[in-house]
């Protein structure tokens, strides 16, 4: 696997096919990665939203004809907070928050991104441990799944550089026939834990 160096990241960014924008400082681009800043929205699981996560319930919802239930299920799970700049967001130990990056990221067809926490924040207990791979052709904000693995709450402010993305070269054609060119991601949102291909393995009645 070939990982892009700073020189090649800048070259591809100046070429225009790789985008991480805005870059506020030259220091944001490291030896082989670009630092990502926290954006202005936080999604947290709502205390009274869902009792538990169960793919069989997700399957039932997906197959339901009842729009109300489908939308209710999707919209009730998280509490959404807008966090303007210079406003604090406290991430408590053991809690998970979905936040967007401030940067808009566009990954060309021959690259993929790998997102991780910055080591300085990781040492404080901040983990970005889950879906870290950004597919070729992705366009939009990157959703960061923040977890506090430490013992004390972490104060986070939009604009802070909390994550980093490295880019690796992908060989061959990366076109996905079911994915549109203009699928843009503007906000973090709940993922789909039960895709149609998973349905055969999930019981209808849990």
């Amino acid at each position, binding site marked *: 696997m070939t990982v892009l160096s700073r020189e090649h990241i800048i070259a591809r960014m100046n070429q225009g096919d790789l985008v991480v924008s*805005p870059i506020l*400082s030259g220091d944001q681009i490291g030896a082989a990665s670009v630092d990502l800043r926290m954006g202005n929205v936080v999604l947290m699981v709502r205390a009274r939203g869902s009792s538990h996560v169960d793919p069989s319930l997700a399957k039932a919802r997906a197959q339901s004809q009842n729009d109300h239930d489908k939308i209710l299920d999707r919209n009730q799970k998280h509490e959404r907070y*807008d966090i303007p700049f210079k406003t604090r967001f406290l991430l408590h130990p053991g809690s998970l928050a979905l936040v967007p990056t401030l940067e808009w990221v566009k990954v060309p067809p021959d690259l993929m991104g790998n997102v991780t926490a910055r080591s300085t924040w990781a040492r404080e207990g901040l983990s970005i441990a889950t879906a870290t791979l950004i597919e070729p052709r992705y366009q939009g904000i990157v959703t960061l799944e923040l977890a506090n693995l430490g013992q004390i709450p972490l104060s986070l402010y939009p604009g802070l550089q909390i994550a980093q993305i490295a880019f690796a070269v992908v060989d061959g054609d990366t076109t996905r026939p079911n994915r*549109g060119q203009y699928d843009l991601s503007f906000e973090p949102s709940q993922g789909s834990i039960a895709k149609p291909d998973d349905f055969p393995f999930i019981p209808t009645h849990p």
Partner: protein
Amino acid sequence: MLPLDFLREESNSVKRALDDTLRHDYAPELSAEFYGECVKRIRHIDQQIEAQVAAPQPQAIAALLSELGDISTFITLIERSRLGEFSWPFADELRRIAREFLAEPDLFGKTGYPIVHVVADGRGYRILFEDAVRSANSVRKFAIVLFPRPFKDHVLLHSIFGHELGHASLSTSVTGYALVSQLTGALSGGNLTSADSMTAWLYSSDAPQEMKHELNEYQRRYPEPFKFNDDIRLFWIHELFCDLFGLLLFGPSFLAAHKTIIGPSHPHPLKFDLLEPSHPPYAVRHRMLVQAMRVLQWHKTITVRTFDSEVHAAEFQFLDELMEDPFPPWARIVTEQEIEDSINGIRSVCSANVYHPPGSDIIISLVKRLKAALPPILDDRSAQGEPNLRKLDFRAILHAGWIFWTGLGHFSPAPQLSFRQVNQLCNQALLQQRAIDEFLSQ
């Protein structure tokens, strides 16, 4: 329950409702200022209530109830101005402009800035601006900016707020007085000179057939033919002024939003409701804006064809569609000279906030970002990766958004973005530009 007891009960309830508002998040420092102002007003009312104990006066009790009702209305609206229901970067820009325009001296002669909140209420674009603060203890007025809830993401349409800011500005003691005096002078020579001259214009031989029909119908039903009076004349002048104000404030984006939002709700653009003649016909308003675009020289393209033929073609189409004016000569109620004088009058009062279109390179750069499905900000860097950060007027982002959307067909390969996606990209750009501004301010 005695009226005075009920009044006391209501005052306590309003205070409790005020306390409840603090359950929610507002932009930093915003909750302290509205909370403090409301507490002052409620305390003053409580003192008035106690003054009534010895000899309750029904009129005084009714007046205090009405005052509490007004505070309650603002509290209810402010509670819904919490974050998450609208585009806060856009709301922040609006709040900044509104504070400037709606500032006026307080009771002590010091410049008082209004407390501006933004609410998504689902009933169209409006600004509720207090006419006067009744309590001697209150020093700040409330201004509530109301967005239609379904258009939460549609920042391009929000340019229409220029018109509403015009109305709110007219009601202020300083800016409003200066604007009205400029306006009266500018529009004193033509069709809008008097109610009689307006009536003559309405009955002129070149009036459209549908308007003539309305006037005949009116005359058939009522004993007197329809005539303008001084109140209606003033309404029309204010409406036309506010359109002009909006254009100067938001640039061509205002006319684009005006045409998009107001045009479709006027299936008969050449006539107006004779029983409720508060607004001129849509055709008259559109014509005046088209004339103003020419006066301002904004009907000419900013972009240079040789620099980017696609963006230039898109801008050409944008302007072509904006300047489209299918209405007959009758719709021209004001002259170019009157418009120019009005523009100069507005500029002399509000020069700091008038829109100045950016240069060709900036518009091209922003529109090309949209073509690439990127938020339209200025984001270039050196070969070594050092960013070249610049401040950018948020209205330039909206301007570029409209050019891109209108000229979508001129780009190759054809972008498949929806109107909502273009709005979302522009909204994201407002947010990112805000981050750039914060960074540069260090």
